[in-house]
């Protein structure tokens, strides 16, 4: 199928780049590729360098080392930086930055230079329909709600059909309930326009909901670049395990190449884990790996509980003082201090060498 081939084409390629201010590197040795029509995400805590990386791709910051290429054309290297206005890369900023003195139609068609008036009007209409705000042409930005402004900013960035669209924390200014509605809608809009997208966020739910591919960053480095599912279930580093999702580390000792011994008994890994015998390791245990089971022999005492509507999140402590999180159906309402039966349900073991 031709579509498949197109999706395999590399749209953006980042090769071993280092970006910094005043000679101090903020991001270092970053490599990344993004396929045509793919939605990628840079996920990380604030200050990890994800916005700096985005600004380097947009052309606002030069690279100290490495290359950035798009569709095979060199954009940034140590010796040259194509200016942002010549890159055909669209961007939606955190503060949206709609032009306050221009109408919605003028905002959207701002980047359509060289288009005829009729062409502009058609494109504006098309985009307003896409973002679900038809016949808003003559309004002004200050009359729009936050969510509407968000959509217009997106329409404005997509209008000139950029080869790549960058979104810098695009939903951070919106309240939680609006975000929940808007994110899947925006994903649909992006897919309909078939534009390649790179998104920056510190919010993992946003990353999971939007992206085909997530790169987790910390302190200027990429820890792991993978699908959201793998990031959650098979984190490659302790940082990723910690930053993404909830969980506790269960202390254990290696018995042989498949088995470890823990406070919850002997656990087996389906494949060789590569640690040496008697080595101390930490196993990542997510709340959904721990099942509440009244019939289980293993009991643990409830330390904290959070009611979350459909379920409870309990934090329990084992007799060995080991703490774990546990999801339980909201019918299982237990009191603090009560001992409940728990059971591990791990289909694979995510292990890290004991932290010093």
């Amino acid at each position, binding site marked *: 199928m031709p579509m498949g081939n197109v999706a395999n084409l590399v749209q953006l390629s980042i090769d071993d780049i280092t970006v910094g201010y005043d000679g101090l590197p903020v991001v270092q040795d970053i490599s990344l590729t993004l396929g045509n029509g793919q939605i990628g995400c840079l996920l990380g805590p604030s200050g990890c360098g994800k916005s700096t990386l985005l600004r380097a791709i*947009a*052309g*606002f910051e030069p690279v100290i080392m490495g290359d950035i290429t798009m569709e095979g054309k060199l954009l940034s290297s140590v010796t040259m930086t194509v*200016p*942002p*206005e*010549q*890159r*055909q*890369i*669209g*961007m939606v*900023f*955190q*503060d*949206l*930055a*709609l*032009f*306050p*003195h221009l109408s919605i139609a003028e905002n959207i068609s*701002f*980047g359509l*230079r060289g288009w005829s008036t009729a062409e502009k009007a058609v494109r504006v209409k098309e985009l307003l329909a896409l973002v679900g705000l038809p016949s808003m042409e003559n309004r*002004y930005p*200050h009359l729009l709600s936050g969510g509407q402004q968000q959509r217009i900013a997106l329409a*404005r*960035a997509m209008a*000139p059909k*950029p080869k790549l669209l*960058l979104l810098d924390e695009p939903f951070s200014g919106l309240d939680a309930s609006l975000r929940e509605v808007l994110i899947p809608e925006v994903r649909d809009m992006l897919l309909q326009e078939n534009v390649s997208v790179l998104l920056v966020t510190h919010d993992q739910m946003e990353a999971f909901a939007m992206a085909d591919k997530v790169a987790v960053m910390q302190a200027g480095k990429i820890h792991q670049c993978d699908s959201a599912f793998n990031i959650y279930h098979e984190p490659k580093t302790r940082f990723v395990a910690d930053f993404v999702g909830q969980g506790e580390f269960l202390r254990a000792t290696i018995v042989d190449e498949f088995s470890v011994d823990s406070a919850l008994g002997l656990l087996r890994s389906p494949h060789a884990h590569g640690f040496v015998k008697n080595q101390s390791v930490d196993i990542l245990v997510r709340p959904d790996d721990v099942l509440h089971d009244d019939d289980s022999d293993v009991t643990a005492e409830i330390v904290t509980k959070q009611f979350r509507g459909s379920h409870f999140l309990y934090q329990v402590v084992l007799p060995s003082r080991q703490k774990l999180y546990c999801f339980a159906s909201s019918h299982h309402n237990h009191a603090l201090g009560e001992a409940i039966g728990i059971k591990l349900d791990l289909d694979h073991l995510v292990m890290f060498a004991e932290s010093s």
Partner: protein
Amino acid sequence: MKVVKQYFSSLSIFSKPLAVLAVVVSLLLTLPVMTVVSQWFHGSFDVWGHLSETVLWGYLVSSWWLSLGVGLGVLMIGVPAAWLTSLCDFPGQRFFTWALLLPLAVPAYIIAYTYTGILDFAGPIQTAIRSWVGIENTPLWLFNIRSLPGAIVMLTLVLYPYVYLLARTAFLEQSASIVEVSKTLGYSYRQTTLHLVLPMARPAIIAGLTLALMETLADFGTVQYFGVSTFTTGIFRAFYGFGDMAAASQLSSVLLGVVILLIVLERYSRRQTRYHTVKGKIAQRIPLTGSKALLAMVACGLPFVLGFLIPAVQLLYWSLVKAEIDKDFVALAWNSFYLAFIASVIAVVLAVVLAYAKRFYQRKRIVVCAASISSMGYALPGTIIAIGVIVPFSWLDHQLIIFAEQWLNIDIGLLFSGTLMVLLFAYTVRFLAVSLGTVDSGLQKIKPHLDQAASLSGYRPLTVLRKIHVPLLRGSLLTALLIVFVDVLKELPATLILRPFNFNTLAVRAYELASDERLIDAAPASLLIVLVGLLPVVLLSRSINYSRQSHINSTSKS
């Protein structure tokens, strides 16, 4: 019965002394404006006809050219200077940021006297040029500064800071993202500046322009000295030269109409600025090098050098070396200072009354209304206010004289006209808006929750006032005192018209000496005015740096 009851309950506000005081004060303060406005309605047609046949047209034309020239001038200086100091980096950028404000300290009439001294026929420049060309003895005027173009240049040099100040704020508040978005949409920096940065600052620039134009129309000293016939000189001549109160009032009412138009435009533009700003992170300043840096330094340096440095140095030189200092100079300074001090105390006390009345009775429309009509004297030319004050007080004087003659059979003479009290009243009308604005914004920063929190901690109202309001408001009160003090010190036309016989101030003395062509002897008085005038400018320049600092802090937090 019910109707009567309602009527009395609507009057219940008059049981509150503070509210009553606020309403009475504001009614008194609007008296001069009302007097002038009333000329629109019951002026005699004879006077109108006479005016329109003789001087009116000429005044309109020269006021128009003057405004047009100054308007273009302040835009050409103020906007580039604001753009350069806020968005570019070049040698001296930090210095120019505040130095460009300094001409605000120089009243237009003083810069006019100073440059006349420097550039006049007999002045050092023209003499030097003539002797250099070898035409010492020919009475050839190379150029005449005492002309309409000269007045335009003088007013431009001291009024551009209004445009500079407001445009600068607008540029600084623009989010850096605006420029970046525009680049991702294919616009170069130059195109972005043209299509976004300047249009977005337009309302602020227009607001600054209207302020400069109001000052232009209010100017009396410069145009009078340069012999340009505008409304203010016309009013003065009608009143002083011909004693024609009717003509003076009618001319005032025409000028008032123009000024009101400007005020409306200014308010409208200020409202627009709210919709034209996207606040966000501050743009990185663009470094300028080579010839561009040089050009930037010239564009910022020239207004500062011409608008402040040269006049200030010249005044200093004349005062210290050449001037014959009045033997009663100390008495003159004393007159000015105590008059300005009393006026500023009155203005601040009334501002406090009005601001608190507004705070306590914010749901009573009459009180809020009172506070805002008290600010009506704002930006009205001193000439108009003087006429508006003279008319009602001389009417009152005449009534009192008639009354005293008829009933007491004594001649009491003029009780009010020509007294300091009338002058102080005029100052209050003109400058109350300044003090009220400062005090009110200071008071608004003390959120009602602070009062409530203090009350909940068991403090009684007076203790709250002493422990919370006094310390928090002190800065605003001092600022208000200082600004009114300096404004009164600089004020010329109202003082000239209303002062008691033989009562002189620094401004009036400078005017008199300059009129006698004793420009050098006018220098000490002028210099003192400029020096004192620097104080509020220093405050202002500190506050624009401070607000930028807090702006940075607030954005870096997000």
